[in-house]
């Protein structure tokens, strides 16, 4: 009998919130080896294998089908692969880990209040400075799609994997696209979000992989697990997986 592989965040606040949410659903996750162990179990569902991974790794492995079900953010799914969102089913939002992917630019840009302003600024910048307006971000796919929807073509992405909010001050980029939960980091760096600058409202989700190998056994385990969260959720998700 094949066993369902569930991946949950391996550390920090996300791990704790995930374990709390599962416990509330009657699915207490045990991590017998403590924080250094990468395997866990659920007593109520002994056939399910639990693995502890980083949230972005979970996103990648859901897309490639190496794990069946996982807890991760929609932002990370989008970022792992351009069309990654098509390879998964978002089964259930878990009401924690809320964060927005936003466009943020210097407070001193008093002429920019909306994305349409940014379209003009990008165009002007290239004509005036002979170079592209630079956007620092780790959200390359989301940024390209959002900017393109707003008809902004005159910019370049500078990939940034940490402390993105410092990019304007360090001169690495003119503006940023970053994730924020309270906005305090942006405020501390004198950055503001244009009125239509929220690209994605993300939160932790239970996500199932469409590309995983779904045997009848595993489908049954998935249904049983999801029904703990809400009765009927299992059926709905399985039919979406095979649609």
């Amino acid at each position: 009998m094949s066993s369902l592989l569930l991946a949950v965040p391996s550390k920090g606040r996300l791990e704790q919130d995930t374990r709390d949410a599962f416990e509330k659903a009657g699915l207490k996750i045990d991590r017998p080896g403590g924080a250094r162990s990468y395997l866990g179990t659920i007593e109520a569902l002994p056939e399910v294998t639990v693995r502890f991974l980083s949230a972005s790794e979970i996103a990648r492995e859901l897309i490639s089908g190496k794990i069946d079900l996982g807890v991760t953010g929609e932002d990370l799914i989008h970022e792992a692969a351009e069309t990654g969102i098509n390879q998964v089913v978002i089964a259930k939002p878990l009401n924690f880990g809320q964060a927005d992917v936003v466009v943020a630019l210097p407070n001193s840009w008093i002429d920019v209040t909306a994305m349409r302003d940014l379209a003009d600024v990008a165009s002007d910048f290239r004509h005036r400075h002979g170079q592209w307006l630079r956007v620092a971000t780790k959200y390359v796919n989301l940024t390209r799609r959002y900017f393109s929807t707003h008809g902004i073509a005159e910019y370049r992405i500078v990939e940034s994997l940490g402390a993105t909010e410092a990019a304007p001050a360090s001169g690495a980029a003119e503006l940023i696209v970053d994730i924020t939960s309270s906005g305090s980091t942006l405020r501390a760096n004198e950055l503001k979000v244009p009125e239509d600058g929220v690209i994605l409202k993300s939160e932790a989700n239970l996500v199932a992989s469409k590309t995983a190998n779904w045997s009848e056994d595993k489908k049954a385990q998935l249904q049983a697990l999801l029904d703990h969260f809400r009765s009927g959720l299992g059926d709905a998700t399985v039919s979406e997986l095979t649609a």
Partner: protein
Amino acid sequence: MAKTEIDFDAARAELSSRIAAVAELVSPDILQPADLFFDLAGEDIGRRLMLTSGPDGTAYCLRPDFTLPIAAQYLASGEVGQTKSFGYLGPVFRQRDYGPFEFDQAGLEFLAPINSDKTFTETMHFAIEACALYGETMPRLHLGAVDLFETLLAKIDLPDVWRPRVRDRFGHDAAMGRLLDRLAVPDQFDGADDLPQSDDELTKMVAADMEAAGLSPYSGRQAEEIVARYREKQMLAKAAVPAKTVRILREFLSIAGPAHEQAFRVAALAKKVGIDLEEPLEKLMGRLTELKAAAPKIEVEFDAGFSPRLDYYTGHVFELTANKTGEVLASGGQYDRLLERMGASDRVSAVGCAIWLDRLEQGAMR
């Protein structure tokens, strides 16, 4: 797989000899510095590139087309300004929504041609005949005229600051539409109204904000630049650009359909609003007359808003599409600003086209 009468190897050999008859066949490196493409086309092309990076962090890509590598080679050769004709046939690499990421293209690039107009005609006929080689004898020809739009834009009653912004959106219908909407009915001014009235003081205030945030006063957007655009936004909210200007631009951009009729519509519009478009119009009429005589079977459509969204195109641009499926089989045009954008000291005229061999072959099998 469906049967076809066409021997693809023979067709390629024939195409290749036609290219060699008018140009030097070249084959630039498959691995190209990614900056070459990003610098010219920005992030729009970024999602299409097959990227990799070297140990020193340099980003490379598999060539997504031949035009830029050929132009770069020409620039590096130190013969800029000399008339050169290049041709190619080989694989290019692009991420796309369907179809393999590696596919073959053939094409021509004429750099500093002696007579751009004549070269454009030859290039277009070369593409038409390449389609015929694969059994597509009646492709539709989609024609655009960047020079016509640029002439109109230069002469129309519009604050100068808006001209480059409008130009940048040419070829992108949705973005252009939104911009024209804003010009017609400006938004309520949404800036703070408690800011200093004098430009001097406002600039000082912005500069102080920048300093507080640790922004460099020497790179990126400057305080003067921000204030200038802020004032301009204030002005626009008070006095929109003339309604007539937006109406003319909208009417012009909506002109599309059977080519001869459309050319007359452009002429009528120009006359009605008193803007002289004679020179580019005459060129367009000449092109249409030539096409009617040389390729009477080809349906020609003129679309006043049609252009690749790349600002180095300058003259006529075209696309050949499959008569039945509408798929683009070949595209080309005049792009006199490309070499200058890449660093040439002067403008160097250039004309070229690319042919989608994979689509022609698939079309032949249907």
